[in-house]
C-alpha cells in the first residue's frame, strides 16, 4: 500500500527510510488512521524528519492524493525564468522585445498569463543549452535577460550573480531559512564550535577523585581520606581576525557578526582583531582600525597553541597581496608583501583556518582566494564549513 507514494517521496529527494515506511503501516494496521487528514499528519510526522522537506512533502501529497500536477524541476525553473521575464517586461518592454527579437507592439497585445505562456514556449524551444552569446536567453551571455550573465543594467533570472552588478534578483526561495547552507544563527554556530575546546583543570578543587580517594584511604589503613580535583574548564586561546573593511565584505556583515557574538560569549581567551582586505604590518584591536594597532611581528611571541581563525572574503586586487608596497594605506609599507605576513602568521600558529563567507563554488573565479588557500586551509562560512574548520583546528 502506498508504495508508489513512498518512492515518489524518495524520488523528489525526501530521505524517507523503509523502516519509517513500515512504521507508517503499523499505524495503519492499528486503525489509528481514519481519514485522509489523519494519513497526512501521520505520514508526515513519521516519514519526514525535517521541516525543510515539509513543502516538498505537501507537493507530493497533493499530487498523489488529489491529482495536483507535480512541478518537475525543469518546469519549475522555466516558471521562474518566465515570471522574471514578465517582471522585466513590465519594467522595460522594449529591451525584452528586442532580446526576443519580437515586435513590442505585438507582445503588448497579450495578457500577463498569455505572456508567461509565450515566454515559456520560447524558452522550451531552445533544445540545446545556450551559454554565452548576446541574443538568446541562456546562461553566461551578455543578453540583458538570462542567467548569471553580465550586462550592466541586466536582470538576473535565478542563480547567483558572479559579478555583483545585476539590478535585481528575481527569484525568491521560500524555505531558505531552513536550508543547510543558509545563514548561520547563534545556535547553529554554537553547535559547530562545540568541539573547539581544550579542557584544562581550573577553579576550586570541588570534584571528587574516586580512584585517588580509595587509594589514599587504603594507604591510611581505612581512615578515609577524600581527594578533590579541580574541574576541567575550557581554556582554549583563540585569535579571531575579521576583515571588516571595504564594500566587498558588506553583504556578509550579519553572518560575521553572529559568529563574532557567539565567539565572544563562548571563549574566555578570545582576542579579536580587524583588518581590511588582507594583513599587512598591523592588525587592529578596534573595529575602526585606527586607535589600537598591533604589529604583526608581535604575534610571534604568543602561544603557538593558540588557534587562529581568519574571516574574510579574500577577494582583492592581486597586487594588494603580492606587491611589496601593496597596501592601500600609505603608512603600512614596511617592505614585506602581505603574502609574506600571512605566511608568517600561518607558521606562527600551526592551528589555523580561514573562513570565507563567499560560497565555495565561487572561489575559483577570484585569483587571490586561490593564492590564500595555499597558505591557509579555507572553509566556507556555513554550518558545514564551520564544522570542517573545527576539525582542522583541533587536529593534532
Amino acid at each position: 500500500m502506498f508504495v508508489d507514494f513512498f518512492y515518489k517521496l524518495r524520488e523528489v529527494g525526501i530521505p524517507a527510510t523503509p523502516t519509517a515506511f513500515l512504521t507508517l503501516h503499523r499505524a495503519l494496521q492499528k486503525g489509528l488512521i481514519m481519514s485522509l487528514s489523519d494519513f497526512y499528519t501521520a505520514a508526515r510526522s513519521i516519514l519526514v524528519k525535517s521541516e525543510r522537506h515539509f513543502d516538498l512533502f505537501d507537493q507530493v501529497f497533493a499530487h498523489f492524493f488529489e491529482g495536483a500536477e507535480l512541478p518537475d524541476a525543469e518546469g519549475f525553473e522555466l516558471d521562474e525564468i518566465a515570471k522574471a521575464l514578465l517582471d522585466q517586461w513590465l519594467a522595460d518592454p522594449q529591451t525584452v522585445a528586442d532580446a526576443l527579437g519580437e515586435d513590442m507592439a505585438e507582445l503588448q497585445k497579450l495578457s500577463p498569463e498569455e505572456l508567461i505562456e509565450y515566454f515559456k514556449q520560447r524558452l522550451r524551444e531552445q533544445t540545446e543549452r545556450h551559454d554565452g552569446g548576446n541574443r538568446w536567453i541562456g546562461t553566461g551571455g551578455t543578453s540583458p535577460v538570462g542567467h548569471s550573465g553580465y550586462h550592466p543594467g541586466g536582470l538576473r533570472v535565478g542563480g547567483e550573480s558572479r559579478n555583483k552588478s545585476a539590478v535585481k534578483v528575481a527569484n525568491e526561495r521560500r524555505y531558505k531559512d531552513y536550508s543547510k547552507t543558509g545563514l548561520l544563527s547563534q545556535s547553529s554556530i554554537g553547535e559547530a564550535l562545540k568541539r573547539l575546546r581544550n579542557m584544562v583543570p581550573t577553579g576550586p578543587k570541588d570534584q571528587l577523585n574516586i580512584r585517588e580517594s580509595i587509594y589514599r584511604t587504603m594507604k591510611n589503613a581505612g581512615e578515609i581520606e577524600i581527594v578533590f580535583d579541580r574541574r576541567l574548564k575550557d581554556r582554549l586561546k583563540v585569535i579571531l581576525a575579521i576583515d571588516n573593511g571595504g564594500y566587498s565584505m558588506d553583504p556578509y556583515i550579519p553572518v560575521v557578526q553572529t559568529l563574532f557574538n557567539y565567539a565572544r560569549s563562548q571563549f574566555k581567551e578570545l582576542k579579536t582583531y580587524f583588518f581590511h582586505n588582507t594583513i599587512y604590518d598591523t592588525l587592529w584591536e578596534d573595529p575602526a582600525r585606527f586607535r589600537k594597532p598591533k604589529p604583526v611581528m608581535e604575534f610571534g611571541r604568543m602561544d603557538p597553541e593558540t588557534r587562529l581563525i581568519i574571516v574574510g572574503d579574500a577577494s582583492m586586487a592581486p597586487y594588494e597581496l603580492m606587491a611589496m608596497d601593496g597596501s592601500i594605506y600609505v603608512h603600512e609599507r614596511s617592505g614585506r608583501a602581505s603574502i609574506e605576513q600571512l605566511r608568517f602568521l600561518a607558521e606562527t600558529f600551526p592551528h589555523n583556518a580561514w573562513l570565507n563567507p563567499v560560497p565555495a563554488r565561487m572561489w575559483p573565479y577570484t585569483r587571490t582566494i586561490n593564492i590564500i588557500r595555499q597558505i591557509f586551509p579555507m572553509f566556507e562560512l556555513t554550518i558545514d564549513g564551520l564544522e570542517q574548520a573545527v576539525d582542522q583546528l583541533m587536529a593534532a
Partner: protein
Amino acid sequence: MTESREKQGYFTGAKRYVLDDELARIVNISMSLEMPLLLKGEPGTGKTMLAHAIAENLGMPLIVLNVKSNMKLIDALYQYDTLTRLNDSRFGDSTRDVSRIEDYIKMGKIGQAFTADQRTVLLIDEIDKADTDFQDDMLDVLDQMEFDIIEIDKTVRAKYRPVIVITSNAKKDLSDPFLGRCNFHHIAFPDPQMMRKIISVHFPDIDTEIMNNAIDTFYQLRELDMVEKKPATRELINWIRALSMDPDFKPKQLAKGEIPYLGVLFKKSQDYTIAANQVQRKRRF
C-alpha cells in the same frame, strides 16, 4: 466522540494549552506507536508546554530531563553514590547496608520514568544542547526501554512505557539514527487568529481592545528587520500581563504607536535598541 477518546487515553488538549488538530493527531499516533515525538520550532512556540499539557490532560506525572551541554547519558539514567557508601563503610551509622550497592544507586530522570508505578510523560528538553553521542546512546535506551546498571549487573526495564516528548531548538538536523526512531513535528509560529485563541486561554477576561491592539502591534514588531531574537508567544503573554497590570495603560496608546515595556518583548540589548528606534520613528510620522 471526544468523551470516549479521553477515556481511552487520547490526548485532546489542556486547560492552558491551545492545541491544533494536526498536533493532537500527531501526539496520539506517537503514543500508540510508542515512539518518541521530536518537536522542533522557534523558541517560545510551546514545545515544552505541550509535554506539560499532555501530562495534565492524561493525568500522568511529568518527569523533565533538562539536557545540559556536558551531560553524559549515565547522569540521566542513574547515579552511584560512592561518597556516601565510602562514608557509611567507615562510620557505619546509617540504616543502609554497605554491602548492598543497590542502596547507593539513585535513579536519574530516565531511570525514574522507567521505574515509576504508572505511565509517565518524559520530557527531554533541548536535546540539541548535548553532543551527538549522547543523543544516539539515549535513543538506544529509549528504543529498548531498558538499561544496565553496571555496578550491580542489573537490568532496569521500564514497567510502563513512558510517553516521550523531545524538544530541540537547533536548526541543525539531529543525526539520522536519532531521527529514524522518532516521529517529527515542526511547530510553526501561530498565525494571528491562533494567537487570539492562545491569549484568551491565558487571559479569560481580557478586554478585546487590549488583545486586538496588542496582537497587532506584536506581529508588526516581529516583522522588524535585523532583530536577532524575535519575540515569541511567551514574550507576548508576559507583555500582555505587564500591560494589564499597569493602571495607567490605555489600549489606544498601542494604536498610536506607543509601546510600553518594550524590554519584555526584546531581551537582547541590540534588539532592544533597534526596536526602540523603529518605534520612535513610527511615532514621528
